[in-house]
């Protein structure tokens, strides 16, 4: 009897997970292949950095959705699992399986470089994205510039942050291209220009909300005055804000992030967060598929482009809330 209860519980858990009852599941499988038109259908491999990384997952979902709009493209998604070895292996497999186009979202650009070069040498069209691997002749790229993403926030902060302010800084994982470039941008575009500003705490919170919360809780104990939270992504900014949101001492605190996540735009709408810059997975996906199409149809041989990184503040937040509503991230 007990055995059957166990089996029933397991089956019910599996069923609830598999049906994904409440989530607006974007199509996880590649869109149906429309070969009815009789045109050649091109095989495209999309190799994601890690489906477990929420931005990478958002991008992969957006790419799948966008690919559905093209009759001449059949897209397969692969997961690099945040592991260089796995990702390199996936690129090699894609070469062996003769894909027409390989889109690579590198885990670590330099580690994937030789494999991308190998694919290009095999005559396959390669597009690198988020972040691009530059300097490979014959390959294309679509990216957002991390330096610019931080800079649009810095330009606002330079005038907004009060004189002799105390600020805290939350960094992404060391060695990560986007984390390092964003921090570099804050240094050159903000701290070097505002030498009166004092950093009272700076830690690596690895893009994570819970780690950022822990640091902020400690900083709040050590400092009576913190005027601004400078975070290299929205997740960490949101974590720090979670700590001070009900504390009247910090009601005027400024908070800057990057990504334009659903949570960040809601915080901006509520007046808790100051600004973020959008790294739109939809824009990246649109440009990626457009680039793919141009490459396979021979319209162009090599394309290198950056998408915009618009600044989101209270003044224009509504349009981005709408964007997330459409995607189902905000109800």
């Amino acid at each position, binding site marked *: 009897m007990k055995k059957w209860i166990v089996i029933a519980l397991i089956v019910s858990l599996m069923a609830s997970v598999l049906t*994904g*009852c409440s989530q607006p599941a974007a199509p996880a499988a590649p869109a149906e292949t429309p070969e009815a038109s009789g045109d050649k259908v091109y095989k495209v491999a999309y190799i994601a950095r890690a489906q*477990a990384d929420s931005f990478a997952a958002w991008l992969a979902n957006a790419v799948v959705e966008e690919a559905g709009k093209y009759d001449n493209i059949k897209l397969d998604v692969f997961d690099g699992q945040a592991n260089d070895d796995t990702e390199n292996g996936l690129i090699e497999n894609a070469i062996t399986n003769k894909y027409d186009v390989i889109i690579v979202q590198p885990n670590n650009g330099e580690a994937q470089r030789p494999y991308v070069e190998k694919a290009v040498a095999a005559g396959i069209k390669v597009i690198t994205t988020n972040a691009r691997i530059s300097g490979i002749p014959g390959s294309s790229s679509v990216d957002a510039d991390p330096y610019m993403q931080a800079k649009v926030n810095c330009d606002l902060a330079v005038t907004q942050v009060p004189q002799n302010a105390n600020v805290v800084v939350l960094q992404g994982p060391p060695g990560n291209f986007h984390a390092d470039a964003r921090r570099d941008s804050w240094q050159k575009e903000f701290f070097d220009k505002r030498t009166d500003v004092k950093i009272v705490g700076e830690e690596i919170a690895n893009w994570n909300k819970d780690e950022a919360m822990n640091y902020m809780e*400690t900083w709040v104990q050590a400092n009576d005055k913190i005027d601004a939270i400078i975070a290299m992504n929205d997740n960490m900014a949101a974590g720090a804000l979670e700590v001070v949101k009900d504390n009247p001492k910090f009601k005027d605190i400024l908070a800057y992030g990057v990504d334009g996540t659903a949570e960040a735009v809601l915080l901006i709408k509520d007046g808790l967060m100051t600004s973020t810059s959008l790294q739109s997975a939809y824009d990246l996906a649109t440009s990626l598929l457009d680039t793919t199409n141009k490459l396979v149809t021979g319209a162009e041989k090599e394309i290198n482009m950056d998408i915009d990184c618009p600044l989101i503040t209270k003044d224009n937040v509504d349009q981005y809330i709408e964007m997330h509503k459409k995607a189902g991230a*905000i109800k």
Partner: protein
Amino acid sequence: MNTLDRNKLWSDIKSKYSIYFVLAALFVISWLSNENFVSVENLSNISTQIAVGTILAFGQTILIISGMLDLSSGSVLALAGVLSVSSYKMTGSLLISFIVAIITAVICNMLNGLMVTRFKTPPFIATLAMMTMARGAALMYTNGQNIYQIGNYVVFGQGKIMGIPTPVIFMAVLLVVTWYLLKHTIFGRSIYAIGGNEEAANASGINVNKTKMKAFIINGILVGIAGVLFMSRVNGGMPNGAVGYEFKALTAAVIGGTSFSGGIGTASGTLAGAFIVGFLDNIMVLVGVNSYLQQIVRGAIIALAVIYDIWAKTKRTKRKHGSVEAK
């Protein structure tokens, strides 16, 4: 009392309570290093910050004492947490969401238990497999995206009762429950016996498989509660949340004197271990220690704790001539 007895008593006190001396010393050093350390608010923050990891560590303690461990607790926490948040969004019921988390984590742990008891899979491998499966299920269910706007669900992790943060209350209650289970029940005694010598335990009439399964089920309940607290504290359903928390939990248990060779460990020791890590993390941030150096210090503390554990155990074993000790 002759000198020999007095020496024996002192050595017993040393080996039993040394972890609390370490904790007290660290407390004093931290106090002297930074005046903000002893503020009520800071100590309450530290307790809140370690609560989720410590609750997982209670489960680990029970498993490690019986000669097992759970590498899946961080991932199962995430799966239980996102299903719980999602069920709250569907039903609006805090009670249902809480139960969903516990049922999910218990089912995952029953699977762990089945693999270990029925199929004789080493716990390391069984829970490693569950770690991957549970994380995958959490990501698949949410499509890799966080769940936001979770409304009143935050009361579990951000609420206060008489000024005490709810996670701390959960941690305190579960400390008492774990202590009682280990010290005052047949189950507890069986756990120590199995960890000390499984064959001897079996020969003395203990149903080893049943006890191991019970240990996993209790671990599941603890992981489920930790899942609710974690998601509620970060104000969102995060399928990527709590990565590496199983190691936080293992660290607390091991520093607290739980022995990887089984048969030794206490709930209060684990709590002390968690506080040692919590104090260290906190004071290093308060005095502005370089982030990279923090990692080195944390690693060194774990190494020292294990070295100490092995050293103390060897001494005790020599003294007791191999008898199983259930502190």
